[in-house]
C-alpha cells in the first residue's frame, strides 16, 4: 500500500515538509509563549524566522580547549538524524523509501540524537554543557527501552517491520485503539527523545542552557532547527505507527497524514509548555518500573491478539 519513491522530487518534498513542520512547531511554541506573556500572538508566527535571521548574522564562538570537531559535529548531527529518520515515514501512500526494516531504521536514526547531544555537551568544554550531556544520557537510559517496546508492539501488530505493512494492518482498527498503552508510551518517549517539554533538562534553564549553552550563531541555528525537526519527525512517525497513516474519509491520504501529524505535533508542543521539567533522578524509576512493565504487558496482550487472529 505504501510505495517507495526515491526520486529527487520526493526527497525535496520530504525536506520541505519536515522544514515546514519544524517551523510550525517553533512558531506554535512562540505562540504559546506569547499567550502566557499576554502579548500579541500574531507576532509569534514570525518569531522563528526572526530568530534565524539573528543567528545567521551572529558570530560563531570557540571556547579554549573545546573539541571543535566533535562539538560542531554534534550540532550538525541532529538535523541529519531527523531527516534520515523521516526517510521511512510515509506521506499518504508514498514514503521516500519503504524499507523492509523501516522500524529498525527509524529507531537507529533517532538514537543518533543521544550521540548528538552528548557530543554537543562534551565538545564545548563547559561545565554546563558537560552536565547537560550527561543528563541526556540518563534520560536516554530511562526512555529508550519503553520506546523500543512501543515500536516493537506496533510492528508486532502487523507482523512486519515495514512501515507500509504497519499502516496496512490498521485498515480495520487503528493501533492507537488496539494498543493505547504503547501509543502513550510512544508519545512520552517522543518528547524525551527530542529533549522537549518536560524532558528538556539536558538544555534546561537551570544549567544556563546546558548542552546548548555555548553554541552561537549558525551552530546554534542548526542545533535549534535540528531539535524542532526531530520533534516534527517523531510526531509524524506516530501517524503510520498508531493513527492509521493516511486513512480517513473524503480528503486524500497525504492530507490526512499531514493533518494527523500536525495534531500530534501540536499536542507535543502544548505539553512542553504545560508541564515543568521532570528531573531524571525522579523519572528513571518511573521509566523502569512503570513504563517498561506497562509496555511489556502491552506487547504480551498484542502478541496474544495476533495469535488469536
Amino acid at each position, binding site marked *: 500500500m505504501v510505495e517507495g519513491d526515491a526520486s529527487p522530487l520526493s526527497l525535496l518534498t520530504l525536506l520541505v515538509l519536515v522544514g515546514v513542520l519544524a517551523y510550525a512547531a517553533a512558531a506554535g511554541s512562540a505562540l504559546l509563549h506569547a499567550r502566557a506573556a499576554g502579548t500579541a500572538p500574531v507576532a509569534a508566527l514570525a518569531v522563528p524566522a526572526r530568530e534565524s535571521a539573528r543567528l545567521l548574522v551572529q558570530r560563531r*564562538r570557540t571556547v579554549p580547549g573545546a573539541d571543535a570537531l566533535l562539538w560542531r559535529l554534534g550540532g550538525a548531527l541532529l538535523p541529519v538524524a531527523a531527516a534520515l529518520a523521516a526517510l521511512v515515514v510515509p506521506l499518504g501512500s508514498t514514503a521516500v523509501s519503504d524499507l523492509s526494516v523501516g522500524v529498525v531504521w527509524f529507531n537507529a536514526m533517532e538514537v543518533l540524537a543521544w550521540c548528538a547531544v552528548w557530543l554537543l555537551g562534551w565538545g564545548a568544554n563547559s561545565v554546563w554543557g558537560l552536565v547537560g550531556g550527561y543528563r541526556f544520557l540518563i534520560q536516554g537510559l530511562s526512555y529508550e527501552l519503553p520506546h523500543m517496546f512501543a515500536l516493537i508492539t506496533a510492528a508486532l501488530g502487523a507482523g512486519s517491520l515495514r512501515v507500509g505493512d504497519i499502516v496496512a494492518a490498521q485498515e480495520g482498527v487503528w493501533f492507537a485503539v488496539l494498543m493505547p498503552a504503547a501509543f502513550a508510551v510512544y508519545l512520552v518517549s517522543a518528547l524525551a527523545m527530542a529533549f522537549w517539554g*518536560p524532558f528538556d533538562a539536558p538544555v534546561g534553564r537551570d544549567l544556563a542552557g546546558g548542552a546548548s549553552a555555548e553554541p552561537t550563531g549558525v551552530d546554534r541555528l542548526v542545533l535549534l532547527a535540528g531539535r524542532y525537526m526531530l520533534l516534527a519527525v517523531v510526531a509524524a512517525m506516530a501517524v503510520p505507527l498508531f493513527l492509521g497513516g493516511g486513512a480517513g474519509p473524503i480528503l486524500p491520504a497525504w492530507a490526512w497524514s499531514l493533518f494527523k501529524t500536525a495534531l500530534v505535533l501540536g499536542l507535543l508542543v502544548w505539553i512542553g509548555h504545560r508541564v515543568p521539567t*521532570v528531573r531524571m533522578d525522579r523519572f528513571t524509576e518511573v521509566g523502569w518500573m512503570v513504563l517498561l512493565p506497562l509496555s511489556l504487558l502491552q506487547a504480551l496482550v498484542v502478541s496474544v491478539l495476533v495469535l488469536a487472529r
Partner: protein
Amino acid sequence: MDVTGWLLARARPCAFVVTAVGGTGARVAVERELRERGWRQAAAPGEADLLVVCGPEDAELADAVERVWEQMPGPRARVRVAGGDGAAPLLDSARGHLLDVDRQRRQAAERDARARERAQRSDGDGHGNAGHGRDESPGDGGAQGGGDGKSEGGGDDHGDADGGHGQGDGHGNGGGDGAGQDDGHGHGSGDGDSDDGHGHGHDHGGMSMPGGIPMADRGPDRDGLRLDRLHVHLGPALADWPAGLRLRLTLQGDVVQEAEAEIVGGTAVASAFWDVPGPAADLDSAQRFLAVAGWSAAAEAGRRWRDALLAEPGPGEPTRRGVLRWLRRVRRSRVLRWSTDGLGRIGGSAPDPLRGDVTDRWARLLDGVEAAVGAPGVSDAAGRDRPASDSRAQAAEAALDLLPSLVTGRELAAVRLTVASLDPDAEALRAHVPGRSHG
C-alpha cells in the same frame, strides 16, 4: 541593500540580564519591557546580543559583567539601567546600537585585532588565557543610563585572585613547554593523594594545556571515590538567580562537594525594592522559581501578573481573575510537586518563610499571593499584612547561613531549585543588616 543590515533589522533581540544588588526595581522594569516587546531573555551570554546590567554601578560586580560581555559573540550592545524609570528609552538606544551595522562591523574588527594582539603577547610572556583579556575600549557598544554617565568598561580580570584558583600561570598557549600541573590551584592534594599522585604527571605533564587552563584535579568524593573536581560559581551573573548571590561550588560530576555562599557588592544600598509590601514580591520569587523548574510558560505568566500587580496596587477584576487562574494552574501541577518534594528541607529554628522543603516554600509563596489578591475588596488590607522588610532581611541572612549545608552533596538541579525556593533578598539584607559581609 546590505543583507546583514536587513537581517539585523528583522532579528528579535535577546537580552542577558545581570542584576546588581539594589537593581531589583530596574530588573522588574526591564523584564516588563522585554516581555511587552516580545524580546527573549537569554539563559547564557552566548545566545544573547544585548547585555542589560540592572542597578547601580558596582565595582565588585564589574569583573563578572566584563567576562560576560566578552562571552557575547556579537553583534552586541550593552546598557546599564540604573533605576526603574527610563528602561524603555535605554533599551531603544541599545537596540539602535545593535542595528548599526557599520559600527558593529568596526567593533568586531577591533575585537579581532585585540584578540590577535593578545595572542601574540601571550606567546611572549606565557599568559595563555586568551579568553579573558581586558576590554579596554570605553563605549564599546555602550548605551549608558540612569544617573551615572560613566562607562563601565575597562574591567581588568587578570588580577582576579578569587579563592586561589590560579589561571594556569606559566602555561604557554600552544607553547608545548611541558609545564607541570596547576601550581597555586588550591586543591586538596594533601589528603591521600600519594597513590595516584604520579598519575597527573603521566597524564598531562607532557602536554601543553589548551588555552593555558589546567586540567581538573582529583579529590575524594562522598562515595569514597577519587574523582576530578571542578570549581565553578553560580551567580552573580546568572539568569533567574537572586541578585548579588554567589555560590562558590566544588563539583564532582554534577554533585556539589563544597559550597560557600556570599553576597557580591551592594555595600552602598540603603533601601530595598520590596520594602513596599504587597503580593508582587512573592510573585516575583515564584516566577523565578518556576523558570528554574523548567516551566517557562508559567514563569512568563507570573511575570505578567507581577507587573500587573505592581501597576495597580488595588488589582482590578481581570487581574485578580488572571492571578487566581495562574495560581490554580501552578498548584495543580503534580509534576512540579513531584520534582520538588523533599528537596532542601529546613527545620528547627529557621525563620518561618524558610521552613519545610522546596515544595512547602513555593506553596507558601503562592499562598501569600492568594491571600493578598484572593477576595475582592480586601486586597489592600491583606497586602499590608505581609511580613515587614526586615523579616525579609532576616530570612535572607538565615538562608545564606543555611545554603552551604543545604546544597552540599546535592546535584546542580536540586541546588538551583533550593536556591530559587529560598530566594534570599540581598537587597533587604544590605539595607537592613549593613554589617553583614559574607554568607
